[in-house]
Structures are given as structure tokens and as C-alpha cells.
């Protein structure tokens, strides 16, 4: 079919699956914050990785140039996505791979199930994959009588503990070593009862536990970090060797990949395989990267499938202010530096994608009105640490603000009666529309001072503004505004000639501020 779009844009089709906050973020965050063990574990882990990342990033003289290239490559991919997909498909198929397309989570799950059933197997091994978490594949397979074994250490910990992932790179980041030891002792058959909580011993226990599964598995399921359009190559980036086991040993390999994971060319990998490892685990390079292109005779799986997943990605793409969220390479640097994520952990976000990127990606994929996802764009102080850390320069704070706007618009559309906020905004619109109006309002400042009383603080504001004073006081406003003060001090006749005063010392502007009643202004 033609890629030239001629008609009116159709309404976006949103994604389903594990993409929703099921309760408002503030409520979920309150609960998670009460878990002091969780906060200690997360604080330790996020700080460890932060310093590692900074150290390896600082080693490269061209890190910023690499980010610029990475950002532009992804923008170029999205702008030409139809052509990229067709090129990738042609190359992957020419080498014996089979491509399936899934509109949403349900369709992807059905395709994967049918492919497994064709092999006659009832057990599969899995490489950690965000796409299959997003579509809830493990649960779906279980309902169909197929057991899916997670093989990544952190995924294994989460699966054994019947828990949910809380981080996209290290799903068990919320567990410390002694908790992992307890889970292994409780859930791992034939585990050494003398297992200690040394990470090396825990890793060894996982090796023993999974070895036989790897060596006998007939079907594996994976995600993919990158798909290269000009060659049809797929890439999986990992550390433990569980990925290599799954990608090499079984007869059948089924990969689930979002349509946005493409890069235009093989040579673009030179950028992303520098950006990704340093941003995610803070390593110069991850221990293992596997690349395969369709089927290679005699080497690896001979039955190679790829499920190309939409599930709301096209809806995100349709948002011209939000679409760069699709540039995400799932490194997790943004959550590791986020002051909110560091304290609440990943479960508070509800969606498979937590942290700053999840707070934009989830509502973009599901629509702002889906369940409680409209609370996610507010799960940020807009400090911008995520933007600084992002290897592909996604302006997360800007998209958060954009989505807050979407939320406000959708709320307003729901309720016809103007809200307090509407009145306040209308008031602000009036006040800020001219200097004269603002001057008039500023004459009311002494009233605020009066309200603050002798202790010079206002403890409770009325109406919805009361939310602001719930956890802090507001200092008494000064008795005059800066504009009033300026007008008084800078009457044309007393104008200061620049150069006469030493800045910051005995300048008239400075002395005037001291010893007068305006000194309270410094508090405001």
C-alpha cells in the first residue's frame, strides 16, 4: 500500500495491556513511601548506578555529540517509519525470518500462543523483554497452559516471588540481597539450604536452577533492543548469557518488538551501542550483545519469528508534542536520577513503564483518559534531571507539561460548570493582561500581611489553593510589590547614573532596600 497520507487523520487507536496506573499516583505513592525497606533499597541502588553512569559518561569526550546523533537518528526513523518498516520486513524475510503484525496486546498474545502451540511445546524460556511485560504475555500463556520461564536474574527473582517488576532494567531493584536469598530459599526447588546472601552465590544458584531448562528448551521468547532496517538485523543486549542461551539453543525463536525500535542502518548501531550500555548499567559495554538476521543455516534457531507490535505506539506517534517519547531506548537512566522514582519506586506508577519516561509514555500510548493515567504526568517536580540524563535527549519535562495540559482540557470537557481553577485562571488572565490591572491588585498586598498576623505566616489558604498549604506555610507577603517599590525609588529626578555606584555595595538600590519596611520582601 502507499504510505502517502491523503485523507483526514483518523482518531488514534490506543494501547492496552499493562500500561495503566490503576489508582491515582499520589495514592499509590503514599502507600509505597511508607515502606522504609523499599526506600532504603532504592536509595542505595539508584545512587550506586548514578555514580557509575556519570563516571563512564565522563570518560568519553564526544558524549554530547553522540546524544545529538542518537536523537536525530531516532527522529529520522519516526519521520520515515513506514519506509523503515517495509525495508526491515523485506530484509528480515529475505533471510528466512517470518514477520507477524499485532495491532494490540491481545493480538500479539494470540500470535505468540499459536506459534508455540504449532511446535507442540508447553514450556518456553524467556529473555527479559519490556514488550512482553507490556502485553502481559506470561499471564496469557499461563491461561493457555503454557509455562514461561523468565531467565534474567532480576526477572527470575520477581517471578519466583510472584511480584511485579518495578524498574525496566533491573525489575527486582526494590529487593535487597537478603530478600533475594529468602525468595530463593522459599521458591527455588533443590536450592542449597546453606545459600548465603552474597550476590555471587545468588547468581550461582540461578545458574544451577536454569541450566537444565536452557539446555533442553525448544522454544524461546525474546524482545529486541534494536532492529536495523537496511539489513533486517535484530539485536539483544544483555549481561548474564541467559539471552545468548535463549537466542542460540532452541529450535524456535519468537521475538516481540515494538514498531518504534528500528534504526535506519547498521552503522547507526555504532551510536546506540555506545549510548545504551553507559546509560543503563554504567558499563563501557555490556557483557554480551547478540545479533541475528533471519535464519543462519546450522547456527541458532531455524524457525525464527518476529511479532511487530503497535499497541498504542501509533497513538503516541500521532501526538506531535509527545512523539519523541518513542525515541526511548529503555536504558532507565531517567528513573535512576529521578527524585520521585527514587522515593516511590516503580510500582507506584502502575504501568509496565515507570519513572519519568513511563509518566509520559504510558498516557501517550493509552490516551490521557485511560484509567488513572492522567495522574502520571504530575508525578514529577519538573526538575529536569531526566532530560539531562536521557541518551537520546527526550525532553521529558516538556512532554509532562504538555500532558498536564491534555489532562486539564479533558477534565474541562467532562464538567461543564467552571471549576475554582477556571475562576483562578480567568482571574490571572485579567490581572496579567495589563500593568494597570496588576497595580490595582497589588494595592491589596497589605491585606495579605494583615492575614498573616504577628507570626508572619499564612497557615491555610482557602479553596483549592489550600492544597499548597497542606504541607507548608506561606510567608507573609511584603507590604508593597517590587513594582511599587521600583516606582517609588526610581522617579525620573532620582534616576541613578550607571557607573556611579559599586554594584552590590553602596548603590542606592541596595541601601534603599535596607532599614526600610520592605526588608520583609526578601522572604517572598
Amino acid at each position, binding site marked *: 500500500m502507499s504510505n502517502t497520507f491523503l485523507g483526514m487523520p483518523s482518531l488514534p487507536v490506543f494501547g492496552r495491556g499493562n500500561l495503566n496506573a490503576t489508582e491515582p499516583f499520589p495514592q499509590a505513592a503514599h502507600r509505597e513511601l511508607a515502606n522504609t525497606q523499599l526506600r532504603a533499597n532504592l536509595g542505595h541502588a539508584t545512587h550506586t548506578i548514578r555514580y557509575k553512569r556519570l563516571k563512564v559518561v565522563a570518560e568519553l569526550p564526544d558524549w554530547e555529540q553522540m546524544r545529538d546523533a542518537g536523537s536525530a537518528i531516532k527522529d529520522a526513523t519516526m519521520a520515515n517509519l*513506514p519506509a523503515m518498516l517495509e525495508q526491515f520486513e523485506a530484509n528480515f524475510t529475505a533471510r528466512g525470518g517470518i514477520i507477524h503484525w499485532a495491532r494490540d496486546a491481545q493480538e500479539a498474545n494470540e500470535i505468540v500462543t499459536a506459534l508455540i502451540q504449532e511446535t507442540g511445546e508447553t514450556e518456553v524460556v524467556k529473555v527479559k523483554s519490556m514488550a512482553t511485560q507490556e502485553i502481559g504475555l506470561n499471564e496469557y500463556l499461563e491461561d493457555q497452559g503454557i509455562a514461561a520461564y523468565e531467565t534474567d536474574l532480576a526477572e527470575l527473582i520477581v517471578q519466583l516471588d510472584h511480584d511485579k517488576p518495578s524498574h525496566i532494567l533491573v525489575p527486582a*531493584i526494590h529487593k535487597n540481597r537478603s530478600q533475594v536469598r529468602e525468595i530463593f530459599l522459599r521458591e527455588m526447588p533443590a536450592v542449597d539450604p546453606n545459600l548465603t546472601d552474597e550476590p555471587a552465590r545468588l547468581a550461582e544458584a540461578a545458574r544451577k536452577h536454569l541450566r537444565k531448562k536452557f539446555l533442553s528448551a525448544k522454544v524461546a521468547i525474546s524482545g529486541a533492543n534494536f532492529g536495523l532496517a537496511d539489513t533486517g538485523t535484530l539485536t539483544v543486549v544483555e549481561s548474564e548469557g541467559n539471552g545468548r542461551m535463549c537466542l542460540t539453543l532452541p529450535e524456535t525463536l519468537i521475538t516481540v518488538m515494538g514498531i518504534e525500535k528500528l534504526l535506519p542502518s547498521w552503522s547507526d548501531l555504532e551510536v546506540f551501542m555506545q549510548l545504551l550500555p553507559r546509560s543503563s*548499567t554504567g558499563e563501557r559495554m555490556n557483557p554480551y550483545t547478540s545479533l*541475528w538476521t533471519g535464519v543462519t543455516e546450522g547456527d541458532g534457531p531455524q524457525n525464527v519469528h518476529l511479532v511487530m507490535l503497535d499497541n498504542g505506539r501509533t497513538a503516541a506517534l500521532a501526538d506531535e508534542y509527545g512523539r519523541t517519547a518513542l525515541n526511548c531506548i529503555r536504558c532507565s537512566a531517567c528513573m535512576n536520577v529521578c527524585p520521585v522514582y527514587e522515593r516511590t519506586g516503580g510500582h507506584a506508577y502502575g504501568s509496565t513503564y515507570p519513572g519519568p519516561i513511563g509518566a509520559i509514555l504510558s498516557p501517550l500510548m493509552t490516551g490521557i483518559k485511560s484509567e488513572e493515567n492522567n495522574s502520571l504526568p504530575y508525578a514529577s517536580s519538573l526538575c529536569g534531571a531526566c532530560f539531562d540524563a536521557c541518551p537520546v535527549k527526550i525532553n521529558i519535562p516538556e512532554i509532562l507539561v504538555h500532558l498536564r495540559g491534555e489532562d486539564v482540557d479533558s477534565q474541562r470537557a467532562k464538567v461543564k460548570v467552571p471549576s475554582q481553577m477556571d475562576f483562578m485562571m480567568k482571574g490571572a488572565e485579567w490581572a496579567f493582561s495589563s500593568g494597570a490591572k496588576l497595580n490595582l491588585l497589588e494595592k491589596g498586598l497589605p491585606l495579605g500581611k494583615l492575614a498573616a498576623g504577628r507570626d508572619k505566616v499564612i497557615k491555610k489558604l482557602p479553596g483549592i489553593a489550600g492544597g499548597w498549604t497542606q504541607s507548608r506555610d506561606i510567608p507573609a507577603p511584603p507590604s508593597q510589590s517590587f513594582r511599587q517599590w521600583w516606582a517609588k525609588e526610581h522617579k525620573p529626578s532620582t534616576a541613578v547614573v550607571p557607573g556611579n555606584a559599586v554594584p552590590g555595595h553602596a548603590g542606592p538600590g541596595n541601601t534603599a532596600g535596607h532599614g526600610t519596611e520592605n526588608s520583609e520582601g526578601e522572604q517572598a
Partner: protein
Amino acid sequence: MSAREDIMARIASALHDAPETPVVPREYRRSSNMSAEQRLEQLVDRLQDYKANVFVTPAEEASAKLAELLAGSTSIVVPHGLPQDWLSKLTDDAGMPAIEVDSPERRLTVAELDALDAVVTAAATAVSETGTIMLDGSADQGRRIISLVPDRHIVLLRASDIVEVLPEAIARLEATRPQTWISGPSATSDIELERVEGVHGPRTLDVIILT
């Protein structure tokens, strides 16, 4: 409408504003500034940082070094295209391991590979800045499975195949070959984000760099 057509139509609709395709700025380093000695030194440093065992050996002593490392092993696998002279000191000597050759004519099974002590392969290229060794399935490196299942991997790397930065390696590799990039022995950072070596892949990585 098929799912494919549906998704393509959704994409076309999503891109109705026809976003422009930016020119990709490639100001990052794409070639080396280092001498061969510096690259070698850097690679050794990086690999040791990953807890790999590194040996820098004159090419003519490859076989002797290999024999030294494999003394005490009972059996190893090599790909059929591994240079014969690298194995010359291993054959038929007392105390030397039995050598299984994996070839298109005789492919070892998973069970056979699992019973072996080690695998010996060559490498396609290596990146010194990141400490990465690339295997591309050539005849001297073999199928991906043989360098994965045995618990010890010994790589012989020609020093002339070391480049400094990743873009140089990408230019040397062919995308469509099945590749494994290896940066140290298998490891995990999944518990408290502290790296520990030794999970599912080979737990010992020995690298002999041939000068």
C-alpha cells in the same frame, strides 16, 4: 484489512503533519587516534577490569600459551577453521585435552558441548575503548553455541584486529552474520546494581592477544 495494513494506515495518519527528517550530525569520533601499542594497552586494561584473564603473547608462541592454559583440562571444542598451528602443542601429548572439532559435517550436540571443559576460538575484531571482542561466526570462530555452552572460553585475538572505537569495528563487520559481542565473562548487576561475574555464559574468559 490485515493487521499490517491497519498499522501502516495508523502510522500514515499519525504522521499527517509530515515531520521533517533531520540531518544526522555525526560529530562523534569515528576513527582512532591511538597507536597500535596504545590500543593494545587499553584493551588489556578494559578486559582486566571486566575480570577476564589476558595474556599478551608473540604469535609464534600461541600454541605454547594455549597448551599452558589448558594443562589439566580433559576435553575442549574448537571450530573447524581454527588455525592448526595454534593447536600443534596440544595434540597427542600426555596431559593434554582431547580436541573435539565442530564442523558443518559434524555438529556437536548441546549435551556433548556441556560435557566439555573449554572452547577455543579466534575473533573477528575487538574494540579497545570498550573492551569488546566480536565473534562473527567465521570458520575460525564457529557456531554461536560452541562459544556459549562450555564454562570456559579461550579467545585468540590478533593484535592487528584491535581497533579503538566502536564505529571502526562496525565498519569491519558484516551485519548479517550471526554475531556475539563479548565484554568480559558473563556477569550480572541485578542485585543492588553491583556487578558480579559468573552467571549463565562462560564464567571464565581467557584472552590471548597475539602480537
